[in-house]
């Protein structure tokens, strides 16, 4: 179980931009801050601007759970693999 907890997966982190603290002048800094609050090593794969506000990253299940509980986080979705039809 511990091993599973430490295995990293990719997540899409959906942020609620209306909850961005005024201390942040740029949403990308807010995204970065939220990510750094749960992981020192994780980096952003993408920052999304139009279809959602948020970013994608690699996290452990524990880190994802911690992130989910933070204010301003709408959802932390595990990445789904799609296939060609």
């Amino acid at each position: 179980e511990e091993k599973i907890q430490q295995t990293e997966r990719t997540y899409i982190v959906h942020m609620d931009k209306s909850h961005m603290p005024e201390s942040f002048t740029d949403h990308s800094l807010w995204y970065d801050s939220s990510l750094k609050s749960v992981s020192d090593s994780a980096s952003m794969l993408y920052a999304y601007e139009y279809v959602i506000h948020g970013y994608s990253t690699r996290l452990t299940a524990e880190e994802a759970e911690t992130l989910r509980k933070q204010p301003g986080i709408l959802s932390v979705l595990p990445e789904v693999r799609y296939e060609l039809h």
Partner: protein
Amino acid sequence: TTRTPEFLGLGRSSDLFPTSNSMGEVIVGILDTGVWPELKSFDDSELGPIPAGWKGECQVGKNFNSSSCNRKLIGARFFSKGYEAAFGPIDETMESKSPRDDDGHGTHTATTAAGSVVPNAELLGYASGTARGMASHARVAVYKACWLGGCFGTDILAAMDAAVADGVDVLSMSIGGGMSEYYGDTVAIGAFTAAAHGIFVSCSAGNSGPMPSSLSNVAPWITTVGAGTLDRDFPASLTLGNGDKYSGVTLYNGKQLPDSLVPLVYGGSVSHSSSGSFCMAGSLIPEKISGKIVVCDRGGSARVQKGVVVKAGGGVGMILSNTDSYGEELVADAHLLPSAAVGQKAGGAIKKYISSNPNPTATIGPGTTKLGVQPSPVVAAFSSRGPNPVTPAILKPDIIAPGVNILAGWTGAVGPSGLDSDKRHVNFSIISGTSMSCPHVSGLAALLKAAHPEWSPAAIKSALMTTAYTTYKSGEKIKDVATGGPATPFDYGAGHADPVAALDPGLVYDANVDDYLGFLCALNYTPEQIKSTTHRDFTCHTSSKYTLGDFNYPSFAVPLETALGGEGGAGVSSTIKYTRTLTNVGDPATYKVYLHSQTQAVKISVEPATLSFSAQYEKKSYTVTFTATSKPSGTTSFARLEWSDGKHIVGSPIAFSWT
């Protein structure tokens, strides 16, 4: 696409078709495996300057530079960070870290939707003719988010993000993944914002048919496309040692078998493995198949891979037999050995001949291209089916379009079978799937967008759906190849696309962001779930009544309750009212309602029964009342509601489900 434009009626002359200039203003985005830009299908000689509002780019990468784009292929990007995060760095000896298509699927879908006109197209001598996309003068922008290892949600979302920012008008996505509520569905989330930006999003329904409730991409702001056949086939004759003849299909064009008969075996009888009947890798005993034709059952592995297994074991030919999952559906493949795919009935007869004869023999003749095959279209067995697994009150799929044995552009990186061992190079290939039907509808949507730039994505979808046909010219209902019987709206949705009729639908069921928000309220979504889905702050009004039945969709799905005690509930009736609003997009006219039902168990009435429109874009509402008696759980039945002014028929399927 050497046949589908004619099959769809695009070969006819009509004043309704948009001009080349207006078509050139429409940009079709394709989210797929990339593009092979050197094909003639991306010739830009008939196109003027790139639309002024275009913000996309031609991303440079391995084997792809800025000159790979032109006035036809106006954008090409790739998204690999999610893929690489999961699988490690891309092996650039295997695939291009660029928009270049190493698979073929993306080039096929892009050229189906909007490829330029290419005379003398063919695959190995089959399906020859002039190939063209459905919107042959529209622009193409390619978003590569699918790689040899699959398509990852983070890359798909990044690609959709870019497509919205770039300014595409249509987004075609022939992919599918897990099923979930809309707030957890990456494609649904991305598609919502795209639709809110006026982008028509079409997605493949999936290839998990004929199993019920097997659909993907079912959000109501997405157009979900199933697959049908066209009136073209590639027959090859099969002769057995007893003189019996059967017809199969093939795209093989190499050295043919001799006219004389060859020993014939069934894969399941020449194997130590339980998977021998499927001719899975390593399952066949070479000594028992060498020099023989092997009968393999469809399923379990890729069809072309079975041919490779037979050939590797020394077999000289293959007969691919459908099992009951596929019925009489014949899908042609560019095999590497003499082959023929046969339906379940012929396959059964051939297997019976083998088991009852001590020395069975057969031969396979060369294949040909046959046009005018009837009946057509028939719903493909593989096409995913309703009911809608996420929201049963929304009927899905929305529509069907050609998706079986489609010829379109291909990559230069792999041969037409898609196998590593296939060293043939072709400009066009023939493949099947709802992946192929989806870009047909995307191209048709582009055509409608060019003809009616002011129409919303929902209006375009409505036009395609309400003008779709459900019967052959004889009046007989469109068939389902999986059963051989008539198909239902759970198989074909509103029916088969008829773009010429869709250009002038008379009336449309329009919908905007507010309608979609109301739909989510009817699903009892929380404000957080609504925001996750729509990217908007919205709280459902407690004073408002939100019902799925009143969501302004061009089709009707009516879930009905079975009275407690099941069949014992006979005589108990329930009444449901649905309200819809029609927008006039034609001349002033008076429409009357017509109802066609196959069940006595539901009484249908419409109020008012006449709608008069005196101006363009005038809106009128009507209410349908369904009064149903109880039926056993699992019972389904169907009806059709049509509005007609004598010139237009605005049709909606109705699906009743007792649960």
